[in-house]
């Protein structure tokens, strides 16, 4: 895995949404939805992205497909061995790149146009990019429907005639129409029942193997993310607090917030004897984040240093893949998912 090419490199990405008030809609402040985020994704890997509601996951995903305009930073995408900042692209060039970068949304209900028969929904990207004849497009729609486990016989139906799981499959089929390389999956299974969720997760894994896809997989359910990801990125209040391989992160978390997330997961096994370890407090207001480390208001290990100086995301000693943004990342003996401290 680690020798694979880097497909996407995000550098110091910032997305600040203005807060407007009053008759003149004057800007009175900014929601720092994403505030200096840097990471990369290798070709063919799945990078998971987790964090609490409002921490900026969707905004990161939407910045990559340019559905929101970042305030600052770069999104570099590997095109023919060149890392181009696609935020600089003008329309025609962006249109080309958008063939390769697709997005799947959380809500299979609102992301499909209810007035369009599903053949048109799936072929729409082909129409926009003027690929193939009408007959070829219909043929492609047929193939894709069968590939995601739906009968092509239903091509003339409308979205409301499908169940939530089937609609999510339609969303996936549409994202695949143009043979993309990278798919931003924004909570693709969060609205689904477990049995259907498992079907869709398996399908995403199969499609990845078959077409060599790369995923940025956003979810708030850590067990889902841990299942599907090669590496996991944890966000808190617009910033990355940790990035590490999936197999590392639940055994030896590198950041107190990751520890807290792991401690919050219900064990789901009455015999495990594992005790939940809830985190106190609530997420601070993103328009007025704490000074220093933005987790300091809830962190059980916070010191004066944490309340004054912001920690950098840095590589942990003894690892070539685990990064954490905590002043004490090297000294804390954080608990694993199972509840044991890691040094043993």
């Amino acid at each position, binding site marked *: 895995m680690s020798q694979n090419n880097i497909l996407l490199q995000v550098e110091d990405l910032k997305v600040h949404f203005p807060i407007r008030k009053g008759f003149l809609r004057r800007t009175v402040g900014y929601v720092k939805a994403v505030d200096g985020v840097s990471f990369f994704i290798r070709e063919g890997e799945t990078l998971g992205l987790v964090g609490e509601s409002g921490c900026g996951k969707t905004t990161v995903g939407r910045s990559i497909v340019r559905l929101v305009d970042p305030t600052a930073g770069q999104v570099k995408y590997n095109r023919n061995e060149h890392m181009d900042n696609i935020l600089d692209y003008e329309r025609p060039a962006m249109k080309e790149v958008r063939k390769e970068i697709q997005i799947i949304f959380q809500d299979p209900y609102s992301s499909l146009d209810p007035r369009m028969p599903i053949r048109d929904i799936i072929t729409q990207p082909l129409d926009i990019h003027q690929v193939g004849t009408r007959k070829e497009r219909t043929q492609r729609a047929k193939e894709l429907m069968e590939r995601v486990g739906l009968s092509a016989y239903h091509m003339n139906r409308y979205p409301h005639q499908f169940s939530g799981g089937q609609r999510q499959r339609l969303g996936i089929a549409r994202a695949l129409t143009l043979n993309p390389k990278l798919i931003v999956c924004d909570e693709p299974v969060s609205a689904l029942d477990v049995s259907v969720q498992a079907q869709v997760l398996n399908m995403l894994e199969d499609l990845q193997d078959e077409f060599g896809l790369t995923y940025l997989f956003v979810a708030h359910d850590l*067990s889902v993310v841990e299942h599907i990801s090669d590496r996991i990125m944890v966000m808190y209040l617009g910033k990355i607090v940790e990035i590490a391989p999936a197999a590392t992160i639940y055994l030896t978390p590198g950041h107190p917030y990751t520890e807290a997330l792991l401690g919050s997961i219900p*064990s789901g096994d009455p*015999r495990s004897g594992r005790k*939940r370890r*809830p985190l106190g407090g609530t997420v601070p207001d993103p328009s007025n984040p704490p000074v220093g480390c933005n987790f300091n208001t809830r962190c059980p290990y916070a010191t004066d240093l944490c309340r004054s100086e912001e920690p950098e995301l840095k590589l942990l000693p003894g690892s070539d893949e685990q990064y954490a943004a905590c002043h004490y990342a090297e000294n804390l003996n954080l608990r694993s998912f199972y509840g044991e401290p890691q040094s043993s």
Partner: protein
Amino acid sequence: MKKEMLLEVSNLKTHFFTDDGVVKAVDGVSFEIHKGETLGVVGESGCGKSITAQSVMQLLPYPKGRVVEGSILYHQGENVIDIAALKPASRGMRRLRGNEISMVFQEPMTSLNPVHTIGRQIMEVVIEHQNLDKKRAKERAVEMLSHVGISAPAQRVDEYPHQLSGGMRQRAVIAMGLACDPNLLIADEPTTALDVTVEAQILELMNKLQDDLGMAIMFITHDLGVIGEMADRVVVMYSGKVVEYAETDKIFYEAHHPYTQGLLKSRPAIGRHQRLVPVTGTVPNPLYLPKGCYFAPRCPHAMDICRETEPAMFAVGEKHWAKCWLHAEKGEGTA
């Protein structure tokens, strides 16, 4: 230790009479809840969990939805009341609702009025049910807010719902539900809309309140992980019917029904890097239910009889029942 019976639901049928036909949302459901215990109710979307709860609370959208058969016996000391025989708006039902049984919903705003302060809403509950004067009622509201872990309760009591975070709102709703010291709290997906960290706080809180106050909880969720932590016993529902009923440990380690087994294998678990084994297909349309066992079209073990005749609840172990022909030889149970 002999457990005292609190709620006995037998052969409950709640149907919806819609323009397209009859939806048998709850169709012959039976279970028991003892004093102080937690009964988990689990199953996928549309299986009838919420309608079961709303039947117990008599909060159905009458006349479209109504209890057409069965009994809901509530044990009030020596007294036994059949809720199914009470009128939703009757005095008897109103007294049960709020005094003896209260409910917490998935979305806290369903229970909160956006234009009134949190304190006023809790006060209304205690004034109606406990005959307290305004001053005492307000003290009680502050006390309850502090009980559910809301900091600075004396100040929060005068705040409006929109001033609270999602987790705090759900705490406030729980405070409202517990203000009258009920014997049974029905929690319908109380943490589903919350982040995992907030969920953990709320679950912890519910466990603590149960230890302190001794109420029984009917805990509805689609999340087996949460069930594993919260429930003493579990009812697994599928298409309006109970398909398995046992102690939590047995559900997790000795599941007998193919649907329960399928749910367990569908679930990703931390540290277990195996391919998921999903239940294939989807739940049937409630207006066009299959013949025989409703699970047969998705069941990997389905036999001819499954596609013809509905199985009974067979006893498969001590206080353990499964509605599946694979276990017919064990003889019919009584659950």
